């Protein structure tokens, strides 16, 4: 039912938008012919558009409110609340296994059905999945807001580039070395910030990210400055150098492998002693310590592991583009990775994968609208945070079954 005051409200909203956009949408001054154009048509469009949007907005907000009430009463009356759809799909074997097979087959044959361009885009999406999963450990699980995560990505990329330039070290050697270097940098950053939390931690990590960026930009003798390092070899297959086309496919499979290993590792850690300690640290630091968890050690493992994953992704990135320079490692990258984690769902592996695919692939396929990319990005973030604050696929805690206990697990 549309009520009168809703119409009134929508009307006010549209009036406000007309007022706000009046100077840019309606008036146009033509300095050549010294005339002012009045584009009244635009004003009408803005008015009608915002009027309808306001209606949709109100409708969605209303949908959201009773939804919340419903779950609350469900808890009170002690009935089993319905599982969220994403969860139900994970539970239902009939849907789950064929879906997994389909996705698996698709990932394997992907480079052969689609063009090299598509494969290349997919490789960058996979790199971001790995970065997202790494940051997910630090931000999503351990709750340490790290805004300088890109620094570790840069460490990996430059580790391969420089080691190869000076010592001719191959990709397969650089991958573990990059991982170890990442862990070392993670711990180096971790030590000074052990005492910090929340906003303070965010600022310090932001600073750390910028320090790495500025060093790479300005220390010419070390990093070759803004011009970067070119001619980084692509990974070779048992010593055979591959053509550009086949090496793209090769990197694609390397990335798939690394992603699978990452997912495996993160998944196992999540429901382990270490993973629980991370989550406990996120939830309440003091209580966590009082329960016998070594705060310093737990934080450092989170930093080190996240940094290792980022660094290894960096090595692959350097091998893929065959060129690194500081422009690839700006604060903007950190923010995109953070958005992947937050929008995908903090602490949730499938969520982060979904987040990376959406945030990296959509801009690529919507190149035609690239001017509006940032606008769409911002809108999406705001809308997501209002309607799905937990992300696309929120994290679920593990459920244990016990004899004689009524659990939500019955499917």
């Amino acid at each position, binding site marked *: 039912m549309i009520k009168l005051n809703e119409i009134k409200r929508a009307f006010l909203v549209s009036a406000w938008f007309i007022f706000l956009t009046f100077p840019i949408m309606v008036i146009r001054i033509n300095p050549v012919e010294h005339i002012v154009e009045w584009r009244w048509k635009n004003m009408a469009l803005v008015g009608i558009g915002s009027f309808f949007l306001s209606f949709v907005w109100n409708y969605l907000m209303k949908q959201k409110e009773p939804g919340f009430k419903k779950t609350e009463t469900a808890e009170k009356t002690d009935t089993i609340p319905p599982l969220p759809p994403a969860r139900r799909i994970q539970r239902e074997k009939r849907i789950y296994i064929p879906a997994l097979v389909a996705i698996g087959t698709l990932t394997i044959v992907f480079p052969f059905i689609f063009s090299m361009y598509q494969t290349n885009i997919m490789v960058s999406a996979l790199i971001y999945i790995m970065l997202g999963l790494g940051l997910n450990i630090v931000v999503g699980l351990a709750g340490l807001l790290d805004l300088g995560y890109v620094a570790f990505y840069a460490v990996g990329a430059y580790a391969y580039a420089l080691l190869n330039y000076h010592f001719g070290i191959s990709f397969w050697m650089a991958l573990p070395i990059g991982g170890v270097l990442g862990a070392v940098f993670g711990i180096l950053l971790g030590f000074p910030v052990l005492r910090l939390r929340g906003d303070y931690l965010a600022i310090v990590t932001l600073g750390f990210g910028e320090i790495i960026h500025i060093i790479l930009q300005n220390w010419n003798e070390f990093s070759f400055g803004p011009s970067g390092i070119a001619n980084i070899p692509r990974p070779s297959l048992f010593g055979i150098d591959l053509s550009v086309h086949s090496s793209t496919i090769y990197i694609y499979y390397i990335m798939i492998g690394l992603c699978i290993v990452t997912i495996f*590792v993160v998944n196992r850690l999540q429901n*382990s002693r270490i993973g629980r300690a991370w*989550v406990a640290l996120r939830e309440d630091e003091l*209580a966590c*310590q*009082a329960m016998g*968890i070594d705060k310093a050690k737990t934080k450092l*493992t989170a930093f080190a592991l996240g940094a290792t994953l980022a660094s290894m992704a960096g090595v692959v990135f350097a091998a893929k583009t065959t060129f690194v320079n500081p422009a690839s490692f700006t604060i903007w990258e950190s923010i995109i990775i953070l958005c992947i984690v937050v929008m995908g769902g903090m602490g949730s592996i499938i969520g982060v994968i979904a987040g990376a695919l959406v945030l990296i692939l959509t801009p690529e396929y919507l190149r035609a609208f690239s001017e509006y990319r940032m606008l769409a990005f911002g809108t999406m973030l705001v809308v997501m945070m209002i309607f799905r604050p937990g992300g696309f696929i929120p994290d679920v805690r593990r459920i*244990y079954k016990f004899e004689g206990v009524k*659990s939500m697990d019955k499917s």
Partner: protein
Amino acid sequence: MECALKVQNLSMDFGGLRALDDLDLDVGRNEIVALIGPNGAGKTTFFNCITGIYPPTEGDVLISARGKDRLERINGIKPNKVTEKGLARTFQNIRLFPNMTVLENVMIGRHCRMHAGILGAVLRGPSTTREEKEAVKDSYAILEKIGLAQFVNEFAKNLSYGAQRRLEIARAMATEPFLLLLDEPAAGMNPNETRELDELIKQIRDKEGISILLIEHDMKLVMSMSDRIFVVDYGRKIAQGTPNEIRNNPVVIKAYLGEEADA
């Protein structure tokens, strides 16, 4: 009596403010000791000093774990090490892990008694699997004892207030303490829940052999269950003794009710 905790001349300064002044206190094995005093007397600061959250300015905190006859000095060590040594605590304002399930909350308490590292967790070898299974089993057993077994998979934040307080005790018990420090366990509970808590605490002492030191304002509860009571005011100990002695102690009455105008 054999001693579980012995605190000697404990003082704590915050800048120029002396929050605790030369406090002595001891808890015997299998004893329930209450620490009472008006608001702001320094009771929680005292707990924080014992559990390593603040390093005390002066004085010693000595403990003697079960089966050891020697007293061990623990002041200045980190809170997690204190817990490892067998002192577990609860908090005045509930500090559970709200977005973890009830079982996971208790399993966090098992953390310091488990060993799996990153490699062990990733490879999930037989010893890790066994340890993990045992942790689940033990945690569940503790929840059954505390009476929270029906909520295993519920989020901690969804529990009722009284149940959250009990869960904090369950979590502390999971660390296998020999001394349990309870900071106002009955705060905000209704009379029914308080009675249940009274029974629960006595049971923990009798069946598990855990000594208990508690801060509490509910005098009925304190008087009914404590073996001895320590009273502090302005960071100083003003009295100690059995519940009966404390009840009739003029100094305590004065601290709580104030002096008569013409006295």
